[in-house]
């Protein structure tokens, strides 16, 4: 029953290279959290619905609970810990704080990754486009109202009333 198929993988996470042996069945999110101690990305479900685990893998937004760690071999990953620099917040993180876009903060890392990905591709999204971009991220605290406002503010737009 115990798969003995451990494998060594090499990944780059937020600019740091890691080489680790992982069990073949380990999910990428558990690899990031448990093996690399990058606990910013969270787990909110077991069906790929909540987006708390969202990361950028080779520049593409995906849910790291829907991927095995071995599938990430050779890739470059960006997590919430990779946003901002030198401990300073980037514009989106700052906008989340300014607009009270987080309460418990559990969904926030995933939200930030989804919103970052949106803004990279679409620097001035409409409200509808913002909502679409975070549609895969569940927040149980904010009703999304202030999250939408924060993304609008981060993209230099007027916030919805």
């Amino acid at each position, binding site marked *: 029953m115990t798969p003995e198929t451990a494998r060594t993988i090499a990944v780059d996470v937020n600019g740091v290279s890691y080489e680790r042996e992982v*069990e073949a069945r380990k999910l990428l999110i558990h690899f990031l959290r448990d093996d690399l101690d990058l606990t910013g990305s969270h787990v909110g479900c077991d069906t790929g619905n909540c987006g708390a685990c969202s990361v950028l893998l080779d520049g593409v937004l995906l849910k790291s609970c829907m991927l095995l760690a071995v599938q990430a071999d050779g890739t470059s990953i960006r997590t*919430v810990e990779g946003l901002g620099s030198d401990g300073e917040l980037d514009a989106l993180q700052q906008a989340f704080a300014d607009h009270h876009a987080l309460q418990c903060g559990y969904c926030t890392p995933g939200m930030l990754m989804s919103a970052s990905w949106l803004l990279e591709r679409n620097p001035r999204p409409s409200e509808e486009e913002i909502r*679409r971009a975070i549609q895969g991220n569940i927040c149980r605290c904010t009703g999304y109202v202030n999250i939408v406002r924060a993304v609008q503010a981060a993209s230099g737009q007027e916030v919805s009333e």
Partner: protein
Amino acid sequence: MTETTVTPERPLVVEETETKPGFVGQNVPRKEDKRLVQGQGVFFDDVKRHGMGYVHFVRSPYGHAKIRSIDVARALEVGGVYGTLTGDEVAILTDPFFELSTPPGAHIKDYALAVGKVRHVGEPVAAVVASSRELARDASELVEVEYEPLPALVDGEAALAEGAPILHEEAGSNVVWSGLFDWGDFEAARAEADHVVKIERLHFDRFSSTPLECSGCLVEYNRGTGQWTMYCNHQMPGVGAIWMAPALRVGIDKLRFVTQDIGGAFGNKICLHPQFVACCLLARKLNRPIQWTEWRTDQHTANAHGNERTFLDVEVPVKADGTMLGFSVRAVDDCGAFPRYEPLGCIIWAQVTPGCYRWRNIRVDFTQVVTNKSPVSPNRGYSRMQHLWLTERIVDIVARELGLDPVEVRKRNYVRTEEMPYETPNGCIYDSGDYARCLDIALELIDYDQLEERRRDAEARGKLLGFGIGSTLDSGTNNFGQSTLLNPELQFSGNNEVATVKLDIFGEIVVTLGTVPQGQGHETTAAQVVADILGCTPDDVNVRPGHDTYWNSHAGLSGTYASQFAVTGLGAVKGATEKLAAEMRKLASLVLGCSEDDIELAEGQARMKANPEAALPFMALGAILNANNAGLPTDLDITLNARYMYRPPFELPDKERKYGNLTLTYATQIHACLIEVDPETGGYEIVDYAAVDDCGKRIHPQIVEGQVHGATAQALGAATHEIFAYDEDGNLLTPNFYDYHVPHALDMPPIKNGYIESESPFTPLGAKGMGEGGGAGIHAVCAALQDALGKTVTRSCNPYHRVWELLRSEDRGVTVQAR
């Protein structure tokens, strides 16, 4: 002194009431945010220990079954498996958790793992610990459990039927608790009425707030001292310890709860004691740290649902002019397989007995039963939400039957602002508020005067437009004495919360709270209160995040629950800070050689009012007492470390009459919405939505508004999609976020916010607890659907298929008797 930026408030609908200068009332930046947006928060699952073992619970696949045998041998053979625990061991090593109920509920035996029998799908029957999450999960499949299935009971009314399967043989009945509440004179009201409206059956569906972070803990056992430390997300550790310590047969100080960041709780993290006890036993048995993180599916199937309630034979006496005189009802509350926090829900609703209305004659025959479903736990709006849904359904159903206008009938029956403080028929005191004014603001926000135009416009597009109002009260700061109305033997009453505030050696102001925040911004609002009293800025105040039993800054009723932080938590902070300020003035007066009254605290200094040049920075005060105190008078009794317990002014309620003040504050939420229904499909959309809130003095308006948004979103989820539905065998049909649809960003309508501030005359800051009042959204959507469809809405949750069925069904179940 560091600068704190105060962000200007966005204009809202009502003029800001005059605010005193200071940080209270301002949107200061949240202290919690920087770490959380950087992914540097510490949630319990982020904590690791050397050699820790991961737990996986083996759970029942049956709704109701006898356990014939459990065999863990094959699981134990697997390399990397550290050990197991079964119900038989639990029954030897622990005592059952105490029950709050009188008999029959008092006889129920509830343990950390199932003993002899399972009573709901997902109930833990054994636990397996291994070196990784994956291994523990795999090995748990090797645990062999032999069951003898029994018929399952999945309906509250059926639980009362003759010959129904009995869940707890020791209790001899499926009833947990029952009682009659009878206030005023209902028979006289019926005689006085011009009409009596009768409603056969209303049903409040089962759902829960489903916080995004699941429950869990990392438990360490100290063999030398016999102490357990739980890094966890329990939201009410004081009460958790009261449950756990006697069960584990240890003193309460053997249990240390530590939390930092918690990913939402909403009441769903109050009843974690069974799993925590299992983890404590395993940590001791296996001599290693034990980690438990609940899977989402487990949270949905076996952690905490909201109470499901059926209202039968509702009768409402009404005068010709639309004045309602009260109501009578038979309520059957389904608490799932174990009562745990129950039967408190059998009394909590009585905090809002007449809802927002001047009804004086109310009779409620209340029965709570067990069924083969997940146990319930308090869920945002706990028990009041179900009852307020009933009062709002009553208003709209009566209005429809008698052809009354839903706005006018509310205004006629609402408690009036000039009647505040208002005593309800059961002795609760509504402290302040102006419901009619809140309603007017809500109506203005959704352009109510254009309703008929919009109706015609929707019709032209083949849609049915519906308008609905939801009025609620968010009662906060419990009088725990209400528990004695259920069980006179219980030794709980009043309420309390603790905080400590100290001035440390380098002049740092350090605050610890007894509360257990989960996103409510307690670090920030506590710092605002402290800064205003000490004359510094919130940035100068270090509020320790989270909770730690070892801080000694909590009391038996501590926690974050039941809409109370702005009253109890901040009341404690205010009290402790005032104590500290007095000590600081005293010390400064000794050093500066003047009287205490000559000293003021301002700009981070204690200085002479008459001569601000004569000043001691906080750092000097901290250093003098803590490190450089030679020469101070020997009888100087100060510590610069003040602990204060806030206790609200409560009396014990009258047990005979079930009468007394059960909560201190009543925040108001009046919501209004417009929906458009597609009659072909039953699909509908909320096209306009307004939420007006009155929670007295707002300490941090942005945080208040955030709570309103979140509570509204949860209510709209509960009104439209979220149901914990079971099949007849007791299988949960919505065990994850795939089947249980919570609102996503595209599901949420734009929410228009308004507010007024009716300060509470009873609280330290004029503030009221808030955050649970979103239930208004359920009431408003039900009312709007009824208006759109022209059919009586009798369920709280109305997914599209129910709307479609409703459109095609006959309207039954309501009769009007003219007198």
